């Protein structure tokens, strides 16, 4: 194993009292290093840029959309079904609403779906995976794994359909449905990592020193699982958004007149192929978001890898 000893900083920090400076400097250094690793992938930069642009369009929609009123209940049959033109870059739909403005608004729902689901799914799934991996072979682990297996067998889309069919179709309910179906994937992922990391010498060292179980799980094992967790999260954003779009395509999720990407696609489907722009632009929007996140995935993976650069 050849290692290059990086002798950096030998002459810099000599004063003990500069603890805060040192922490700050090392943190900044850490961030710079992470960014460097991420940026080695040109595609990831493109992905990140795409995602950021889409996010900004969604956030600042009321300010930059050409026709912000078209997002709510608005009807103008005089300008309905207009082909893309200077005044309507993406044309108008059968109600006369500007598709560009509505698409920009729909981005919001997409991101809310993505973040909302993942912010719940990732912590719960990861913790369960950590526990199952560390106590592999014991009852608690077997129990968690079997429950995970059961939930893994449920197809997210069908489950979401059932949930939304039973309850009112809203964005929140569809998010809940996707959450229920999504968490086991993280348990599986972290379980695999936790099992192998639990056998590493540094974990054993902590145990031998007398560390508490929570310390071992959260401070020793978990930090080493972050790389695949974050990579998967990045890719999952795209998938969750796609699932959300699929749900709204069949009428679950955001209800009209609130624009949602899937709903817009399905609304325009009956006008294909003559009034192609009503479906195609929202569909392209979905594709671009998902692609953006997928491209970021490689960069995120590299960012967390502990390799030397």
């Amino acid at each position, binding site marked *: 194993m050849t290692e290059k000893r*990086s002798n950096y900083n030998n002459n810099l*920090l000599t004063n003990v009292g500069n603890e805060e400076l040192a922490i700050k400097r090392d943190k900044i250094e850490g961030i710079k290093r992470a960014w460097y690793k991420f940026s080695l992938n040109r595609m990831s930069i493109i992905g990140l840029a795409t995602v950021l642009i889409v996010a900004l369009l969604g956030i600042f929609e009321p300010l930059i959309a050409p026709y912000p009123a078209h997002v709510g209940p608005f009807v103008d049959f005089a300008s309905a079904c207009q082909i893309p033109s200077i005044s309507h870059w993406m044309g108008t739909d059968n109600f006369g609403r500007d598709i560009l403005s509505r698409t920009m608004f729909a981005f919001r729902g997409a991101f809310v779906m993505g973040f909302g689901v993942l912010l719940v799914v990732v912590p719960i799934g990861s913790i369960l995976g950590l526990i199952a991996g560390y106590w592999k072979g014991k009852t608690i682990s077997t129990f968690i794994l079997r429950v995970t297996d059961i939930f893994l067998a449920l197809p997210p889309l069908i489950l979401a359909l059932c949930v939304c069919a039973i309850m009112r179709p809203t964005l929140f309910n569809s998010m809940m449905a996707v959450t229920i179906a999504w968490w086991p994937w993280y348990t599986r992922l972290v379980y695999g990592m936790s099992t192998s990391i639990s056998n590493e010498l540094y974990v054993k060292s902590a145990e031998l020193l*007398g560390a508490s179980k929570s310390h071992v799980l959260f401070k020793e094992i978990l930090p080493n699982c972050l790389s695949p967790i974050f990579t998967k999260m990045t890719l999952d954003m795209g998938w969750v958004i796609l699932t959300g779009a699929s749900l709204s395509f069949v009428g679950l999720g955001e209800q009209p007149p609130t624009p949602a990407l899937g709903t817009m696609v399905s609304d325009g489907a009956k006008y294909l192929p003559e009034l192609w722009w009503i479906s195609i632009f929202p569909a392209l929007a979905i594709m671009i978001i998902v692609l953006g996140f997928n491209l970021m995935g490689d960069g995120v993976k590299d960012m967390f890898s502990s390799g030397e650069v």
Partner: protein
Amino acid sequence: MVNNILEVKGLKKYFPIYNAGGVKQKGVFVKAIDGIDLSIREGETFGLVGESGSGKSTTAYNIVGMYGVTEGKILFKGEDISIITNSRSLRLKKDIQIVFQDPGTTLNPQRSIRQILRLPLQIHGMLNKQNEEAQIIRLLNTVELSSDFLYKYPTMIGGGERQMVAIARAIATDPSLVVLDEPTSSLDVSIQAKIINMLLKLQKQHNLTYVFITHDLSLVRNFTTRVAIMYLGKIAEIAPTAQFFRVPKHPYTKMLLSSIPVISKMEEELKPKKIKSQGEIPSPVDVPPGCSFNTRCPMAYDKCYKVDPVMKEVEPDHMVRCHLFD
């Protein structure tokens, strides 16, 4: 009167084997340790040598409790410690420490040196709350590392430095016994020299007892006070270091000594006559009957294939397990 700080009696550690389906195979075991007896005296550096598969690392792991005991007893300061770490008292964990072989995996790459060294102090209530950082820096200084290392991560420092941090972590709790499992095997010679000298200095300062496990016999010659050599889970010979090297008795000892690469003619003369290793090392699952060394021993005769020899004291403090000395 020198006390025995550690005593191992009839220790056996067998590992079950799982077949492809994940099911334990009945009656078949990897006999990692197959009955060993040791006494380690307070303040000495006890060397445990052997090649891979000899069981020396398993012995180390048994002493610190990473593995449970299949049979036999381990006594530490008179107390029976033949239990695994999870069941051990905090006091015991404070008193026995281990430094592992691979500096690459012995420190968590996601934690800074400061966090790594703080852990043992915090667990055993030895943290000086007012001045934590100074305390940790003092710890770093005892292994001759500067305060610059506090906020670095293991991936940023070299293998030798990582081992020094591992040593600092081990002595942080002021233990009585430190097990050193091949601490310098993967390090360069000049770093090794530095670490060994540091270990000697620490031993004097803190009155430590070392169990030093290695396959490097030249190192053993210069660092230990007594040596035991293991082969396939059993001890072949134990003697004070100088005697072990001057008058080795067991054929395996002689074989090992004769194959050390040395760098001067003078050292060549000190080696026993070259004994070529014949045959392969048998698998620890399938140990041959009789003496386990009979597949490679140039002096094996018919008794060696039938009866397993027992440990005998052939000279004061010098024990051998071989039919040649029956």
